[in-house]
């Protein structure tokens, strides 16, 4: 007899649970040592409350009516609920505030893609610490946590969500086509971006900059000789880089094309990559306006790791196999 469970969900049995628990215990220890207290929030929230955040792609996918007809949603991340907690439960506390969480979040899936409907996230939120120091602290905690799990080959891709919009503004790109250009970048479609720029009527120099700058990624040299129009965001990244301890700085890949499809990110954004996995293990960034939408204006930064992805990457590194590890054996130029 078959009693199915929804695609994108699964039962976790003792062997796997033990391994996952070992990982989360390590992460929790590091988060607590850095002063991040663990919180739980309800998996169900009022839709009208979460809707205050601009979630874009990560909008809650599951809605139910409660007994009085109110619409409840299953949370799709922990950042928005914690912003709510800060504005309501810590309305007059002295910042900065530090929280960590280990929580299941719920996302819509596309069929046949192996996407999780329910995913366990581990993360921190640092509220009331502006850039660059707050960003530096978040990146430091991230690296300490990953180091503690034993993950070896990971890198952090670091960019700034405001860079491309600022570049468009200073190049006087007409307002009405900015969203379309940004969307090509979010879709990772450089061919589409090139086409859209060719049709935009912008000067060749401006179009070339808008196509070329977001493809710049690599070491700190990426931050030198950047065009004047991107200076503000690049200066912000350089400040972060200067303040990082060497072991963390070595992990960073600067990526001037890194953008987010979640609307609330405002400044620095980052992704965690490991050659054992074809997709990012986690990511985060600054969301300086989100907490303000719930009534207490505080700059903030945080990250979330997909615990299952981290588990797969650790297992892949252990076996010396994994998605992209094969390539590194060929003496890859970096």
């Amino acid at each position, binding site marked *: 007899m078959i009693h199915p469970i929804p695609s994108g969900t699964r039962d976790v049995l003792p062997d796997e649970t033990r391994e996952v628990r070992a990982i989360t215990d390590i992460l929790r220890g590091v988060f607590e040592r850095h002063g991040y207290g663990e919180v739980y929030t309800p998996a169900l929230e009022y839709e009208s409350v979460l809707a205050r955040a601009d979630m874009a792609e990560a909008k809650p996918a599951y809605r139910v009516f409660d007994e009085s007809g109110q619409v409840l949603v299953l949370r799709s991340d922990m950042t928005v609920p914690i912003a709510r907690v800060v504005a309501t439960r810590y309305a007059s506390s002295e910042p900065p505030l530090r929280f960590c969480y280990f929580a299941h979040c719920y996302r819509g899936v596309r069929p046949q893609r192996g996407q999780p409907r329910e995913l366990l996230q581990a993360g921190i939120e640092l509220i009331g610490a502006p850039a660059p120091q707050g960003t530096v602290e978040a990146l430091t905690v991230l690296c300490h946590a990953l180091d503690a799990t034993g993950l070896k080959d990971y890198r952090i891709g670091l960019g700034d969500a405001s860079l491309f919009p600022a570049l468009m503004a200073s190049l006087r790109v007409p307002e009405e086509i900015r969203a379309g250009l940004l969307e090509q970048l979010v879709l990772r479609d450089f061919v589409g971006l090139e086409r859209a720029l060719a049709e935009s009527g912008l000067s060749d120099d401006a179009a070339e900059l808008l196509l070329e700058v977001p493809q710049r990624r690599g070491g700190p040299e990426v931050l030198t000789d950047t065009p004047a129009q991107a200076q503000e965001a690049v200066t912000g990244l350089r400040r972060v880089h200067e303040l990082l301890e060497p072991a963390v700085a070595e992990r960073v890949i600067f990526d001037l094309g890194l953008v987010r499809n979640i609307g609330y990110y405002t400044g620095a954004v980052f992704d965690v990559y490991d050659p054992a996995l*074809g997709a990012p293990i986690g990511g985060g960034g600054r969301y300086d306006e989100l907490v303000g939408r719930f009534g207490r204006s505080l700059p903030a930064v945080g990250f979330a790791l997909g615990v299952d992805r981290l588990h797969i990457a650790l297992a892949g590194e252990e076996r010396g196999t994994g998605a992209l590890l094969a390539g590194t054996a060929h003496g890859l130029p*970096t």
Partner: protein
Amino acid sequence: MTPINGLTIAVPRGALFDGTVDLLASLGLDTQELRANDRKLLFEDIGVITMRPTDVPTYVEAGAADLGVTGKDVLLEQAAQRSAEGGRDVYELLDLGFGRCTMVLASKAGPDPAHEALRRLGVMRVATKYPRIAARHLEETGRQAEIVEVKGSVELAPLTGLVEAIVDLTATGTTLRENNLVVREEIVVCTARLIANPVAHKLKAAAIDELLARLRELPATARGRGAPDPV
């Protein structure tokens, strides 16, 4: 012989195969065995894996290959219905220019049976191997349609009365003409595209950018680049 810059490349068997292999050869890869042996799938010494074009985005998205070559038709079909949902999680890096085809809406010659069906029955039936591209095009042009997904010989469907129209890819239009079908609308021009895994794009940035620079420098004919496409 070693892979190009240590990169693994997913190469599509079928219509795009020759163009892709020519491209790899012009980059200096030894493609002799790749051309000679059409049963072998994995050419580890040159970093090439071969597969159906529709599987290329799957392998590249998962990181089983760093780069891949596939048709824009495949990428469009596997993209989400609405752009905000994002498509396959791969970078689309370069229009390689070859494998140029057009996605068209076609129906039997003479008075358009699709037009007649829409007017009298309120819905047109459309057979296709590209249900999402077809559905999106008809939605965008404000027509109600019943999409019938078929796996082969789409031309048969309107001739037997299964549907009033088809959406299919055509290069020369010969097959359509032979089956007494005429193109009613051109939906989109499709060419071969170079795609990249999003993690490889960051971790192997120098290797990928060097390859891209060499591809961009190839003479237009080697890349088969024609006039700019409207996509």
